[in-house]
């Protein structure tokens, strides 16, 4: 905790994929030297068009994918595979269909080897935190999309990770539920002060939630990192949407994404 540097430090990350096509093997450079820091407690969004490498970056930080070169450090320790210092919220929740909500939330602690009574009490707290106390014993097919994502979020929080990684968690939800979830995530961030790395292609969402927005180009590089100067706590998302800062940053990011989009992605391959 005495470490003074950034919570997350990403340096010169590159990632090459080999794609077998009809004519042979093609090398795809998903990431071409990505560097950025995330300070403790900061909420950073990664945005860009699909295929720009934002999810790849997240997966490398998570430890599921391995970079071709470059480094990722959490609190100054180099990342090598997955660990309990990172919690992941997947795009489609990824709940185990045979487990109830509470059992799904316990899953991470179970793999970690936490005792049953202890993990049940932690899971109950998290269930309460995401407002699903009444649905503890429902199975995933009995939960709505928003509820599933809440369970996914609660599960990610059980191991008390240093960094919360979120991969377009609200992308599959309908507009109203998405706004609800955004508001709740804001208050949750306020309560837990977690460091968050959030992938989204929704510019509004990026501006509303984050302290900084990392704009990716379609060629796997960073175009710009935009500061969002909206004070916290952000208790009034509707009001925030009306502010000049929100409008300006939203327009700026939108314009930058259009500009970097000029060259088709195929050229980058």
């Amino acid at each position, binding site marked *: 905790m005495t470490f003074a540097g950034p919570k997350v430090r990403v340096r010169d990350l590159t990632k090459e994929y080999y794609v077998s096509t009809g004519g042979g093997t093609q090398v795809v450079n998903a990431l071409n030297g990505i560097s950025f820091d995330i300070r403790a407690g900061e909420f950073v969004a990664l945005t860009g068009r699909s295929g720009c490498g934002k999810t790849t970056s997240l997966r490398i930080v998570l430890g599921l994918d391995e970079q071709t070169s470059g480094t990722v450090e959490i609190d100054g320790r180099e990342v090598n595979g997955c660990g309990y210092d*990172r919690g992941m919220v997947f795009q489609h929740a*990824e709940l*185990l*269909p*045979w487990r109830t909500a509470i059992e799904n939330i316990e899953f*991470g602690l179970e*793999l*970690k080897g936490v005792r049953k009574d202890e993990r049940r009490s932690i899971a109950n707290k998290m269930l309460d935190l995401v407002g699903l106390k009444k649905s503890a014993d429902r199975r995933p*097919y009995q939960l709505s999309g928003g509820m599933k994502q809440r369970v996914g979020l609660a599960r990610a929080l059980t191991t008390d990770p240093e960094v919360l990684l979120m991969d377009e968690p609200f992308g599959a939800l309908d507009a109203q539920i998405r706004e609800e979830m955004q508001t709740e995530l804001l208050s949750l961030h306020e309560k837990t002060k977690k460091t968050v790395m959030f992938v989204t292609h929704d510019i509004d969402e990026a501006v509303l939630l984050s302290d900084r927005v990392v704009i990716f180009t379609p060629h796997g590089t960073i175009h710009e990192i935009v500061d969002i100067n909206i004070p916290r706590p952000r208790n009034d998302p509707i009001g925030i949407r009306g502010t000049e800062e929100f409008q300006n940053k939203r327009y700026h990011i939108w314009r930058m994404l259009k500009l970097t989009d000029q060259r088709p992605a195929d050229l980058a391959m």
Partner: protein
Amino acid sequence: MLDTTGTKQSAAPPPAARARARRRGFGASVPSSVITIASLVIMLAFWEIFGREINPIFASYPSEIFKAGVTMVEDGELFEAFIQSMKPLSLGYFIAAVVGIPLGLLTGRYRWAEAGLGMYVTAGYAMPLVALIPLFILWFGLGFAVKVAIVSVLAVFPIAINTWAGAKSVPRTLIELGKTYVGSDFQIMTKIIIPSTLPFIMVGLKLAVGRSIIAIVVAEFFTLLTGLGGIILKAGDSFDTARMFVPVVVLMALGIGLTWLVGWLEHKVAPWQRDIADSER
């Protein structure tokens, strides 16, 4: 206004309700058990009527088979034969499950196992293993052991091949979830792959029921003429067709019964599966 509509509705279903019933399809309001019984009654009636017209050497009919069955039950022959068949059948089936499930899980989960064992599973599933029975008799003799061996070898492959397919179809993202929480190979296998594969394992176990029944009858034909298979062959050789049909009917009932038992077991070990299927219907 509200009142009149109310009385109209109670007198006859409103057009909307009728349309809904029509859309649900034929027989939506008839219980499944009634349909099953009606089907059985019609089938037996036809068999009885037309069976009587045919020379009793070439075919028989329900009432005659029933009479033969009663005699065989009374002198204890049927029960004895049934037990004689069931012992090697259940042991062989059990061995097939104990070998087939882990075999399928390994081939579905690990590249080395799939590359090294997959072809044997596919070959074993596809080839007529009955062709190997003479060899089995050389190895295991003509007694109990050879029957167990034949049943296990025939039943193991549908179990293994289904489990294999199931283990392969576990969503990659769920395995990644396990890796995210630094799960060991063993944890990923027991907490993600096996529960996810259970419905496939159950399909394999159901298919293996049919295979086991074929196996035990064929085994009894080839070896000592014992059990239900023995009765079939002996009755057939003496042109006693009604008598021959009794064990056939017993075997059919056994197949249905055991399959139902596996279905019941499935509901016990994987209750969520039926719920999920129902919720999507």
